[in-house]
Structures are given as C-alpha cells and as structure tokens.
C-alpha cells in the first residue's frame, strides 16, 4: 500500500471540494482580481483530474498569499518572497505531488526575484501564478516592481523614477518553458491557461493580471483585453523563442500604454524538466525520497560502510 494514496486517485471531482467549508471567507476587497484566480483554479483542477489532496499550493505573503486559505488543497503559506524555494523542494522530495506556487508582483518579482530567476532557469516542473496588480496591496498601496514609471504612492510621492519590470521577458530569458499572461476579467482564458500550465512538464509561469480596486484606482482595470491567440492582428509561433520574445516585448510595451494583451506567449514542450535532467545525471532517485521513508523494504545505507577502516 502506498503511503500517498491521494496521489493519482481517479474519480469524479467536484469543484466544490476545493472550497473550505464556511470558514474562512475571503478577506479580499469587493472587486478584487484575486477572486478571478481562485475561481479559475477551482475550475481548472477538477478538469485536469487533480484531487485536493494531491495538490500542494505554496504561497507567499500579501493578499495573493491567502489564496490557499480559500482553496482547499494541501497548502503552505510561507513568507514574503519565499514560495518558490519551498515549492520546488517539495517537488524534489515528492515529484508526484502537484505543486502550484502563487504570490504577488511584489512578492514574486521584488523580494523573491532571485528565486524566480533561478526556479525558471532550473525549469522545475511546477506552475507559478503571479497575481500582478502593479501595487503592494496588503501593506496599503506602495509602488511595486510592476507599477508604471511615474506611479505615485505614499512611498514614492513624486512619482516612481523606475521603469516597471518586464516579467514575461524576464521569465523567458531566465529559462521558463511555459509563459502566459491572463487576466481575472477573462475567466475562460484563465482557466484554460491554468490547465495547460499544470499539464506542462516544466516551469510554467503565468503573469495573472489582477486589478486592485482599493489601492490602484488609477491603474487600468485590464479591460478591454485582447487575446493574442484569438486576434488576427497577432500572428506568431508560441514555440519559436525569437517570435515569443518579440511578442512579449510588444505586450509589455503596450500594457504601459493601456492596451492589455493576454494569451500564451511561449511554449517549449521539448526541454526536459529539472527532475528529468537531475535523474539523467544521476542526482535524483527514481523512487520519490518521501516514499522511501514508508517503504519497508528500503535499505538504509549506514555511515559505517563509508569508513576507511584500518587497524
């Protein structure tokens, strides 16, 4: 009998299973874009056949960090910026668990920026959803790494002198193998993209545009958006790195001008995920490390056998 029977369980899954009963109710503000991520996830997970108990959602701090309080899976609500190192280790320890990491733009692109680059670079098999509302919400409205240049806030009262970070281009350059942007106001696209990201075998990065009605009133509410896959104006091959890079730049340029382009930007199905690479060089066992502790037949090597013994 396996120690992790929730993994790979095949049955009809109701999306209501992902709602944690009466308590807690989301504390997000009315009109918050974060509701869109929660809804899309609840729809996507049953459709890809995942049960709540085989999914681990790992979040950072901020409004986005509360995602797994309102989504009933195994969850780890970490600390500001640290969701990715926690998430990728959980995946390394038990690759059979479905790992979804989530956080905000301050959390993921600011304080956790270093981890973001390296997790993308290593192409860990996981999904990473960044709630991008261009603001620090829970700390009450400070400029974030994706806030537009000139953005005024209590901490940058004269307007930010910094250009916003370009998450899609950054992700591509770092090595992510699935990169998309979607928006809370576009639930069907969001659900489909999340499904693809979960099924993708590698690091899937979703820049999820979530409006903040309380602290970012000046910001565009990400409508109307254009789906680049649906529109005839944007013809590019998502498997072609060069074309993807060009489209990402364009998308990131026009977002600052008020045009919201969403969709899949880059899909690399060929590159092996990190655990495949790690197995190939002999750094990763076939049996999940976590399984081993429950395996009665497992042989536990002893340090005694490593000693260079001599009388």
């Amino acid at each position: 009998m396996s120690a992790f029977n929730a993994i790979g369980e095949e049955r009809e899954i109701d999306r209501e299973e992902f709602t944690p009963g009466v308590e807690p109710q989301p504390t997000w503000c009315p009109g918050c874009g974060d509701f869109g991520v929660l809804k899309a996830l609840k729809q996507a997970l049953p459709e890809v056949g995942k049960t709540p108990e085989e999914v681990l959602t790992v979040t950072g701090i901020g409004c986005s960090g509360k995602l797994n309080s309102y989504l009933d899976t195994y969850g780890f609500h970490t600390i500001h910026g640290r969701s990715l190192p926690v998430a990728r280790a959980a995946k390394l320890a038990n690759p059979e668990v479905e790992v979804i990491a989530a956080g905000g733009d301050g959390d993921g692109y600011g304080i956790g920026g270093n981890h973001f680059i390296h997790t993308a670079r290593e192409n860990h098999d996981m999904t990473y959803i960044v709630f991008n509302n261009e603001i620090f919400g829970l700390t009450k409205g400070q400029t974030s790494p994706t806030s537009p240049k000139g953005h005024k806030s209590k901490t940058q009262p004269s307007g930010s002198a910094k250009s916003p970070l370009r998450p899609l281009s950054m992700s591509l350059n770092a090595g992510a193998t699935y990169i998309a942007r979607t928006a809370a106001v576009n639930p069907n696209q969001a659900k489909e993209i999340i499904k693809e990201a979960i099924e993708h075998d590698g690091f899937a990065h979703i820049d999820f545009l979530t409006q903040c009605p309380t602290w970012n009133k000046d910001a565009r509410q990400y409508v109307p958006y254009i789906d680049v896959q649906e529109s005839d104006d944007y013809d590019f091959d998502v498997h072609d790195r060069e074309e993807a890079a060009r489209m990402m730049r364009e998308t990131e340029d026009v977002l600052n001008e008020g045009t919201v382009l969403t969709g899949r930007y880059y899909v690399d199905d060929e590159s092996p995920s990190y655990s495949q690479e790690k197995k190939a060089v002999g750094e990763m066992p076939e049996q999940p490390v976590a399984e081993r502790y429950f395996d009665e037949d497992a042989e536990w090597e002893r340090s005694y056998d490593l000693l260079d013994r001599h009388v």
Partner: protein
Amino acid sequence: MSDDELIWRIAGGSGDGIDSTSQNFAKALMRSGLDVFTHRHYPSRIRGGHTYVEIRAAGHEVQSRGDGYNFLLALGDSFARNPQEEAYYGNEELKPLSENLDDLREGGVIVYDEGLLTEDDVAELDLEEKAEENGWHVYPVDLRGLAKEHGREVMRNTAGVGVTAGLLEMDLEHIEDLMSDAMSGDVLESNLDILHEAYEMVGDEIEVEHDLRAPEGEHDAEQALLSGSNAIAYGAIDGGCRFIAGYPMTPWTDVFTILSQNFPKMGGVSEQVEDEIAAAALAVGASHAGAKAMSGSSGGGFALMSEPLGLAEMTETPLVLLESMRAGPSTGMPTKPEQGDLEFVLYTSQGDSSRVVFAPGSIEEAYEQTRLAFHIAWEYQIPTIIIYDQKLSGENTNVDVAFFDREPEPGLGSTLTEEELAEAAHDNSGKFKRFQHESENGVSPRSLPGQKGGRYLATGNEHSPVGHISEDPDNRVYQMDRRLQKLESIREELDEEHESNQAAFGDDDAEYGIITWGSSQGAVQEAVERLNEQGHAVKGLGVSDMMPFPEAEVTDFLESVDEAMVVEMNATAQFRGLIQKELGRFGEKMTSLLKYNGNPFEPAEIVEGYEVNLADEDREPTAQVRIEPAAGD
C-alpha cells in the same frame, strides 16, 4: 609537556598539496598504531600564502592540538614565485620557515628545502643563532632537486615525507600503501623512487643529531581517520537525512560536499541553490513534503536563514540546520575558528521563537548529536541547530570504527500514516486538525501532502488547529504555550532517555572548575588532566546543550566548586552570559578565559589561564588571551 609525542608541522603555500600530504601522513601514523589529531591553519586565498597543518601523534589518547610542535617540514611556497621571471614576491618564499619558528619547541627538528631557499635567504632569519639558543636541529635538504630529478617539482612533498620518515626512523610500509591507493603508473613509480631516495639520504648524506623518534603504539581495534565535518555528515546519514540544500561558505561547505557526493548513491537529493534564504527554505519545503532534510551555513550565510528558521518553527516543520562558525563580525576571518555566533544562533528570528541547539565538543559528539538533532527535530517538529566551528570542522582524529556500527534511524517521528490519519481528528469540512491544542508534550502529529485524509494549511501566520490564519486571542495563547511546551518536553527526554550530552572530566571533589562549550572541550580536558597531574584539584565540564539548557547539570557543577573559569573562543564571554541568564546566579563565581586571535586554544594556555585566574598568581598571561573578571570584581 609530553616527550613521547610527535607534533609534525608541514608548512608551505596554499595549493602546494599541504593538505593532502598531511592527510596521508596522518593516516600512515594512525596505521602504525598511533592516535592522531590534526590542526589546520590556512589563509583565505586559493594559492600561495602561508599555510600549515600540524599532526599530533602519540601512543596514548590525544584530544586536542598540542602545545607548540617539535618537527617542522618547511616546504617553499611555490606560488610565491612569479613563473615568468623566476622572481619572488617579497619574502613569501621564506614564510614556511620564518613564520613557524615561534611555536617550535626546544630541541625541535627543522627540515627545509635548500633547493628553494639559498643560504643567503636563510641567513636573514638568524636561523643558526636561534637554533643554538633553542637546541634545534636543522637539516637543509634539496627536496626540490630530488623531486625534479625523478619526476616533477611538485613531488617535493614526497621527498619531505621521505626525509621525515628517515629522521624519525619510521617504517615506510604504511606510506607506500597509501601512495599506492592514491596514485598509479608513472606517477606512483616516480613518487616511490623519490620517497626511497629521500629516506635513504638519512644516514648516507644526512647525519642524524636529534633524539626525537616516532612514538610507538598499537590499536586493539579498527580505526578510521575522520574530521568533524565527516562526523556530522555521517550522523546525518544515519539519522535518515536524504535531502540537503546549501550555498557554499567556508567552513560549512565540507559537510555540504560530503553529503552531495554520497546522497546520489543513497536515494537522496542534494541541491546547490542561489542563496542561503533559498537553501533553508528548500530544506523546509522538502521536510514539509516528507523528506528528512537539512541545510546549513556559516555566520554570514546563517544570517539569511533566520527567516526560514522562524517559518519552520511556526509551521512546526522538522528541520536540521548547521552553523559552522568562523571569526566575525561580517566576513570576519573566513578560515579562522571562533565561537562567536552563540547568541546569534540562540536568539535569531522573529518573536518568542525557540529551537534546539547542540554544540558538540568532539568528533564523536558531533556524530552523536547530529543523529540526535534529527531524532529531536522529527519527534518534536522543531528546528534543531548544530553549532560548531572551523576547528571542529577541519580537525581529523582517529575513532574506533565500532563507534559507528549501529543502526540508522530513518523514522519520520511524529508523522502519521494514512491509517492513523483516518482515526485522527478532523473539522467539519474534512480538514485534519494538524495543530491541535490538546497534546501531552506539545507535539501535535502531522500529515504529508499527498496523504489521504491529511489536508491542512501550514502557515507562518498564527493559525487555528487546521491551519487557517487566526488572530483569535485564546487560540494564540494555546498555540504559543503548546509550542513552548516542546522545549520542556525535550529537556525531559534528554535528561531521561539519553546519555548526557555534557562531558565531565577530572576529580569530582575538585574545588576549582573549568567550564567550556563546543570545540574548546578537547583542550580543556587535556588542561584539566595536566593540572591534576601537577597536584591541583580541578575538574572540567564541556557543555553541549545550548538550548534547552541543562540547568541541573550545570548548577550541580557550579555549586560543587569554589571558583570556575569559563573558556571560550570569543571576545564577549557569550557562553558565560548564557549560564548567568539561564541559572540567574553564579556571576560572582565565574571568570572568563577568552581567546579570539583566530587560533584555537592550546592546552598550555588554559593551564596558564588557571594559574593566573584561579590560583591567583600575580602576573599577566603570556598567551594571546583575555581575562574577564567575575561579576562585581
């Protein structure tokens, strides 16, 4: 000072093979039946600069580096020369000889490489005069020429070992065996030729004038030569650890390397990551998912870990961290030992946080307490930290292999199986009450992601029994009290079920006490023995449990003596401060002997510290130590 011991110091430039040569020579001495103990001194640079390794070998037990040394093999520093111009950078070439003379005992032996150092160079040092004054015996030998003749210049280490063996009348058998294990083909042939020729020069070309000979000894059981880093790595392996994440930093890197090299063969995973925040966070993530995981660093890197450390405590994720101290603050002296991070390790992280901290005092304790750290972390779901230092990390000594002949402990402690989860408490929505208030010893058993019936939320925020964020005042108090209860339960378990982690030595009835912690223990133990041989009544205590503190044991010790000296390698008497904080008294009984010049204590310095401090000799100590008077003095 013991006459029946050899303390051989090989000095040269970093990158000249000093480490590997000394490691092999130490093994050869061990295989000849001697007990050995090494001490490594090196600068923070890759090549060149003055470095040495001391090997103390005796027919009896050795617990520390000795007092000074009695045989110097001074190789030139080959990196001190500019290969293009055959020029020397300043006087570095001379350093292996010039820098070591202060510590050489009377009657000691010097071998230096006259293939590198001309008579004119050596004349600068007034070596002849000093040798006469101290009764040293100086043997200039052309090691470089001999090496070049039969192979390459780099083999002059072998020539040096050959001359050493000849001068000490050692058998070459063990040295040859070790060389045959390490090399083959032409390289082995050349090295063996050089070894024999150098050995035979003694007697033929070199007239022996000194009395020092290799001591004799015999082991009655199989031995292994290993370092503190080896012992910690082995303790982790036997404790069931199969996941390590880290970032390189001296001196913690040694353990990281040993486990990275062994885990692939053992079904484990090792990850080198972007920084220490990530490293500790990875260990937390892996542990959360069901692996026995560890991470570690040295002072500066450990500073970054205080955040994930707090997360591990709040989420009750089992975790073992290592903190291998080097001299600070900031980058300090990267390759030099100090015991300066105690307070940092005890109190780092937010709020009323707590963790278990062990400070092993010997290589055996390093193994034992690392195993224990894994046991306690997984049983009580609390971070445990092994605090040690560059000294313990890098010193090698022989250990009876039977010591390691025991079963591994791969159990996940208070982690439930799915069968147990089915019987466990859940809330109305089906969530597992992973953080229950009611529990006997503070421990509320956990589940793992992917287990049926174990769904919960782990959060660094204060949380309800199922893990939802909660700021309810009653819940806060319950949860806080339960987490704090763990330390008391751990203290009880340590007192009742395990042999004491504290090492006591000397006479029970002694009126003077010397108390220390961590890697200074060996030198203190030896000093206590020597003082007793000299007719003083002294006893010693090496404390390893830093948190939870062994109140009863330390109280008994301090109550039983009139005066006590606290020995530690830092400038602010951190351990003495801890004792006073934990026990709330004895301030007037304790004086401190502090050393923080980058070199570990020699037993003689502690003996001297005792004489000045406790025996009230009216003089200043000659060693580079500082005395901190008792409270109120």
